[in-house]
């Protein structure tokens, strides 16, 4: 995981771009289909070439835990879906930093690697909301 604390990236996926859709993931995985169905929507929106951003916040940050083994509950891996997002053109994955902090989660220690997340504070999240046409919370 690469963490950029509120830095502005230079890519097309830049932190300052506008989004057609911001999907907010605020629930823990596996106790419901919420995380899966939110990510399904993200993949669909990416496929249809919409600019999509994802924000993991509150219990939603638990979706990013490394070493998930959902086959213990006969469920499919979220990690694969999260890894697939960039291939489907989902341009930004953001994580609210305070939600990690409150849960004693350390990006280097607990969060899946190999995926680029922007670590955002409250102010940056307000900006992200401003730059998104539509917000759907899951």
């Amino acid at each position, binding site marked *: 995981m690469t963490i950029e604390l509120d830095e502005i990236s230079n890519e097309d996926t830049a932190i300052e771009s506008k989004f057609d859709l911001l999907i907010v993931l605020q629930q*823990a*995985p*596996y*106790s419901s289909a919420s995380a899966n169905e939110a990510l399904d929507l993200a993949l669909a929106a990416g496929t249809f070439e919409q600019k999509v951003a994802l924000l993991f916040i*509150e*219990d939603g940050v*638990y979706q990013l*835990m*490394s*070493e*998930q*083994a*959902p*086959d*213990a*509950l006969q*469920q499919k891996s979220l990690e694969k879906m999260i890894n697939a997002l960039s291939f489907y053109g989902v341009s930004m994955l953001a994580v609210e930093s305070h939600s990690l902090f409150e*849960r*004693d*989660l350390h990006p280097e*220690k*607990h969060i899946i690697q190999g995926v680029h997340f922007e670590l955002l504070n409250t102010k940056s999240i307000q900006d992200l909301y401003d730059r998104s046409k539509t917000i759907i919370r899951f």
Partner: protein
Amino acid sequence: MTTLHTLNRSPADTQLFKQLLSTIRVGDTLLLLEDAVYYCIKNNLNRTIQDIEVFALKDDVHARGIPFEGSDVKLASYEEYVRLTERTDKLINWY
């Protein structure tokens, strides 16, 4: 009389935990399942509820990728959940 308490909500549901805390007694047993297994990350449950034996449902812990080394909480299978039901006089499910 001993009671087996099960809890299935994440630590974010502070109201539910408060209700459980005001009811649980010395000698009771607490089993964390579903999203309640996230209580294992901070590993400070045993300071909040002393003299209560705390278990976490193994498959829920593994599915969610919760680091578990050095935890004071014991892992339990579904069979052990049933045995805890046997071993106690009554049951309260907190959800």
